[in-house]
């Protein structure tokens, strides 16, 4: 249901719980980037956070990773309040939540080998991975990780620039999985990729989730991608969650006008349902600007609800 404001389905144990989260920037005349956000993500599910640029989704992601302190509210991971933990305890807990970013190239040190990149979180979090024995162990673990994301285990001594965008994204997924996290934050993980590559990365993420029981917090602006991956969807606008619910419910029967507006705006890769269909449906909003000479255009201010044929 869309009315149950962010609670996870009862069958899933809550892994991540955000309560009353608020983040203000810039003091007296500052902005409220995140405004009273409450949301629960159940273990093993994929929650998709959807919104346009500036809506606060990046700040919300940084808050839940504890890269940013909230102005108010709490983030609980597996029942523990991240804000109440001592630094050492937070560090220990951190290995359980990892992140994959949009642009794999800018999130990798170009001077490190693939092996060093993937092993970085192991070395940070796992004392056994250090030293001479550690190095041997690391090569084995990195090789296995690379194979689990569909790469050749033998690429360990090569550098990021030798690989395509899709391959680099596989490397960053391997890196995120290196310390066996329970929650993976995927921040627009396929937005920089070609569609054929995107499809394969989405397949890989689904397979890894099934095999490892991962929980995904999937941030995206692309509703067609979200439909493929999400169990539940949270729609964010101007710092607030305007709608949270089961994916099918939110997409088929959106309760908030902004969600409707987002859905109507998605270009449909089917010419029978696009412009021609709308043109055939008559002189609606899509063609309204076609005759007048003055301030025509396509209704810049409000939603361009031209999807009459949908």
């Amino acid at each position, binding site marked *: 249901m869309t009315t149950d404001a962010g609670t996870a389905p009862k069958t899933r144990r809550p892994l991540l719980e955000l309560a009353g989260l608020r983040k203000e920037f810039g003091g007296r005349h500052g902005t409220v980037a995140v405004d009273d956000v409450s949301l629960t993500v159940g273990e093993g599910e994929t929650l998709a956070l959807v919104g*346009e640029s500036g809506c606060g989704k990046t700040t919300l992601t940084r808050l839940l990773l504890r890269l940013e302190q909230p102005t108010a509210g709490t983030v609980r991971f597996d029942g523990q309040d991240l804000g109440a933990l001592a630094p050492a305890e937070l560090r220990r807990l951190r290995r359980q939540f990892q992140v994959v970013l949009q642009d794999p190239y800018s999130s990798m040190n170009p001077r490190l080998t693939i092996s060093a990149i993937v092993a970085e979180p192991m070395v940070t979090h796992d004392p056994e991975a250090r030293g001479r024995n550690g190095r041997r162990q690391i090569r084995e673990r990195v090789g296995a990780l690379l194979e689990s994301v569909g790469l050749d285990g033998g690429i360990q001594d090569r550098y990021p620039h030798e690989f395509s965008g899709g391959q680099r994204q596989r490397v960053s997924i391997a890196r995120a999985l290196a310390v066996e996290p329970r929650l993976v934050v995927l921040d627009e993980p396929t937005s920089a990729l070609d569609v*054929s590559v995107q499809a394969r990365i989405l397949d890989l993420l689904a397979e890894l989730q099934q095999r490892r029981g991962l929980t995904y917090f999937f941030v995206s602006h692309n509703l*067609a*991608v979200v439909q493929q991956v999400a169990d539940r969807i949270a729609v964010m606008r101007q710092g607030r969650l305007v709608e949270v619910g089961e994916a099918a419910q939110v997409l088929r029967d959106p309760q908030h006008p902004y969600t409707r507006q987002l859905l109507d705006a998605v270009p449909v*890769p089917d*010419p029978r349902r696009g412009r021609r269909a709308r043109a055939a449906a008559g002189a609606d909003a*899509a*063609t309204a600007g076609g005759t007048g000479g003055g301030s025509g*255009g396509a209704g810049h201010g409000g939603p361009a609800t031209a999807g009459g044929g949908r």
Partner: protein
Amino acid sequence: MTTDKPMTTGSKPTAEPVLEIADLSVDFRLDTTTVHAVRGVGLRLAQGETLAVVGESGSGKTATALSVLRLNPQPPCVYAGGRILFDGRDLLTLSEKQLGAIRGQDIAMVFQDPMTSLDPLRRVGAQVAEVLRHHRGLSRAEADAAAVEALDEVGIPDPERRFRQYPHELSGGLRQRVMIAGALVGRPRVLIADEPTTALDVTVQRQILDLLVSLQERHGMAVLLITHDLGVVAETADRVAVMHQGRVVETGDVLDVFHRPADDYTRRLLAATPRLELA
């Protein structure tokens, strides 16, 4: 050929092309290798139609589009072969001066990121008016008045105030409208739009696509639309050319290409495109 003939939906195969690219080859000669970015591409753009060139990164779609006005950086780019015919003239053989008279006047371009194509230090109105002063020799007052009208036409609210603002004072969507106003103010017969909505949010993208379609219907220009997004193609194009590894692998009416793709790569591209199913 008249320039302001209202368009009819769809393109007739017999229509005289306003722009014809024939057997175009474009190389990028780098220090150690030569990249054959475009390999024998042929495209015909009829008056009043929208032809979408779709492909993934590295397919050569942008190199093809930039070749029309010879905007690929030279070096390393070399136009290795072919012709680009406009008004019976081969644009590849014109002098810079001759081509300069066509750029922005008869053939205009809109790019993905307006912030990199608008001059951040100049007011947007002056940048829109520039085309008219440069090509038409209008006085400053005449050009400014026409520029305000052009900003109004692309749906920019309060155009007199926006006219005096700088690019950074506008949102991404408004900047893209300014770019479109600047491209269309000279009433070009061909508009080349290279990923015009890729950098925009989805609701803004919808508005810009609707704007492009309605402006085309009003002015009847031909549009060469470069995109990676099959959704954008389906929403705007009459015909589509699919590019892969520097070649056009398939060209046809959008309905045919989407529903009866002849080429294997086209089929794979369509299959990989996520669609929102709301039914």
